[in-house]
């Protein structure tokens, strides 16, 4: 789960990482009030779950509360790469003496934590990595004992951060790493981490990605979602524990397992069709899950046909078939459903569908055949 900058900073503050004084605002009037409380010059920053807001005009300076209101009025409602700005963060302007880049993430290849630090912060770090690789210091961290003090120091010295404030920088790195691990983050990225004129080290931005698998340890993290603008279909799917992503085509897809669903998308594309969505019911789906999945797709007007592709393992095909039959009885399903069942209890599942004898259920023997039938039916609808 990608957090807004201000949400990430609230977690930083909780873990002892210095951040600028700031307030959020949802209206220009709130922005004026926030700027007034903070006093002095402020910066008004669009809160979006996507990069590049600076170039898009989503970050503006304001000399006083009145200007802050005007800037907020410009930024609120702005579209940044498809994301509508609904919240701005108003922060005291920092006195920047130096800008650095820091991130902690998992290096899947090495199966270790990876720290990256650069003295060239505040700019396009991917460009720095490509053009001046030596300017980006990388260090692997053993997750068993975590970032050691000597490693934090070595990152600071090797990256060439300000020597006089090395102790403070190392301490902030240790706290950011503490947040990365202790809050179950997939990513903690700060660009820029700044040195102020008075020698403090402050996180001027935050990019935090939370691992939702860790939420059982942090039940309050679900609250962050309240501020996200979520696609209503995706929200509905999430509330029903379905992994759903809206796409552009007309063939609704339901499958079990991310790999099989991705593959179904690929095969639909290969035979000339186009998927309306990605919908993974996960492992061990019961009849209710299938009914819920079909229910979600009824809300998508682009769908012309639905392809259910199930290869049972932990999922039992008989329960899937039951779910389809229940949905036929209780929901208005405006499209044909091509169903391919294989694996655990597939024979029983196919028998249940045959018994139901619904005209809108089209059985398919293979994944390829199912894709072809679905694309054909979508074209006909």
């Amino acid at each position: 789960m990608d957090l807004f900058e201000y949400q990430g900073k609230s977690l930083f503050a909780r873990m002892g990482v210095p951040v600028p004084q700031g307030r959020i605002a949802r209206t220009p009037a709130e922005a004026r009030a926030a700027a007034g409380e903070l006093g002095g010059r402020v910066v008004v920053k669009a809160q979006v779950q996507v990069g590049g807001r600076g170039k898009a005009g989503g970050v503006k300076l304001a000399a006083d509360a009145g200007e802050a209101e005007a800037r907020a009025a410009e930024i609120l409602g702005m579209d940044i790469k498809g994301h509508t700005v609904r919240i701005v963060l108003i922060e005291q302007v920092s006195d920047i003496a130096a800008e650095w880049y820091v991130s902690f993430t998992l290096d899947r290849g090495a199966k270790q934590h990876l720290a990256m630090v650069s003295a060239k912060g505040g700019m396009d770090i991917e460009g720095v990595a490509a053009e001046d690789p030596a300017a980006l210091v990388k260090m692997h961290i053993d997750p068993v004992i975590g970032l050691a003090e000597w490693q934090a120091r070595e990152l600071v010295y090797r990256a060439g951060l300000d020597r006089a404030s090395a102790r403070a920088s190392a301490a902030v790195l240790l706290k950011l790493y503490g947040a990365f691990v202790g809050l179950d983050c997939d990513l903690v990225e700060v660009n820029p981490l700044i040195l102020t004129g008075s020698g403090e080290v402050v996180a001027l931005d935050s990019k935090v990605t939370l691992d939702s698998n860790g939420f059982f340890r942090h039940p309050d993290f679900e609250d962050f979602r309240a501020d996200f603008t979520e696609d209503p279909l995706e929200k509905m799917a999430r509330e029903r524990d379905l992994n759903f992503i809206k796409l552009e085509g007309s063939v609704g897809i339901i499958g079990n397992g991310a790999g099989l669903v991705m593959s179904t998308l690929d095969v639909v594309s290969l035979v000339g069709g186009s998927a309306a969505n990605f919908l993974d019911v996960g492992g061990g789906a019961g009849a209710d899950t299938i009914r819920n999945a079909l229910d979600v797709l009824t809300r998508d007007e682009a769908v012309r046909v639905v392809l259910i592709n199930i290869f049972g393992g932990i999922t039992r095909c008989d329960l899937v078939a039951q779910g389809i039959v229940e949905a036929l009885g209780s929901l208005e399903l405006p499209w044909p459903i091509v169903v391919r069942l294989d694996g655990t209890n597939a024979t029983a599942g196919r028998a249940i569908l045959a018994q139901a004898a619904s005209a809108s259920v089209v059985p398919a023997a293979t994944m390829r055949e199912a894709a072809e039938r679905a694309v054909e039916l979508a074209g006909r609808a």
Partner: protein
Amino acid sequence: MAIYVGESTRLVVQGLTGREGGFHAFRNRDYGTNLVAGVTPGKGGTDVQGVPIFDTVAEAVEATGANTVMTFVPPPFAADAVLEAAAADGIRLIVCITEGIPAQDEARVYAYLQQTSRTPLIGPNCPGVISPGKANVGIMPHEITLPGPVGVVSRSGTLTYQAVHELTTRGIGQTTCVGIGGDPVPGTSFVDVLQRFEADPETEAVVLIGEIGGTAEEQAAEFIAAHVTKPVVAYIAGVTAPPGKKMGHAGAIISGSSGTAKAKQEALEAVGVTVVIDPTQIGEAVAALR
């Protein structure tokens, strides 16, 4: 021969008394897997369908000679369960089915096992391992398998079944099918499994099922170039998938250009792997090797 599981497997299941654990463990037993024990703290001394339950893995191993652990323990307790399994003398394989373990737990457990234990871990979030005709340790539907000469290894759960199904329906059997799971830190990687298939005299060819994200397929390609003499057929899912989670700039820097289905396909093709673009072609491609 088969890799990881076979006739000598003596299986103990963490969470045998749970619904999913029991369902699959007994399916495994019905298939012929030697299910010798279950472990559920607090239920030691009871039994389920004649299989004795112990409070700890160590007790189960002492009493039954178990050598393989399969775990169905829920995510908050799964890391601890894997560490318990790894610490038990005599356990030579751990298969962790549990889905939803935090990545930080996985990273810590993986690193600690690397440092202190020689016990391989398959998973977490994986369908397990089946050596057709010998033993099934996991949730793969054994009906779709057939004994034979092809090794299958896959990051994806249900797509593994699809691949195996494509082989079996063409009469091509498998030595062992290994689902390594698609989590960020799998205990066992493509490379580990390829190494075993290469060393296994009965495995004549390998099917590798990858997907977008991470660098495991690129690492597999490097390993194949250097160490694998047997033919490999690969399929990568996600050619048309929308770009997923990006992990910020850090993620882009780590993975470079890799991570896309196209990059993975190219990396594998470059080292002589037959890459198919439709899973239904896997069977044909393997058949064509002969």
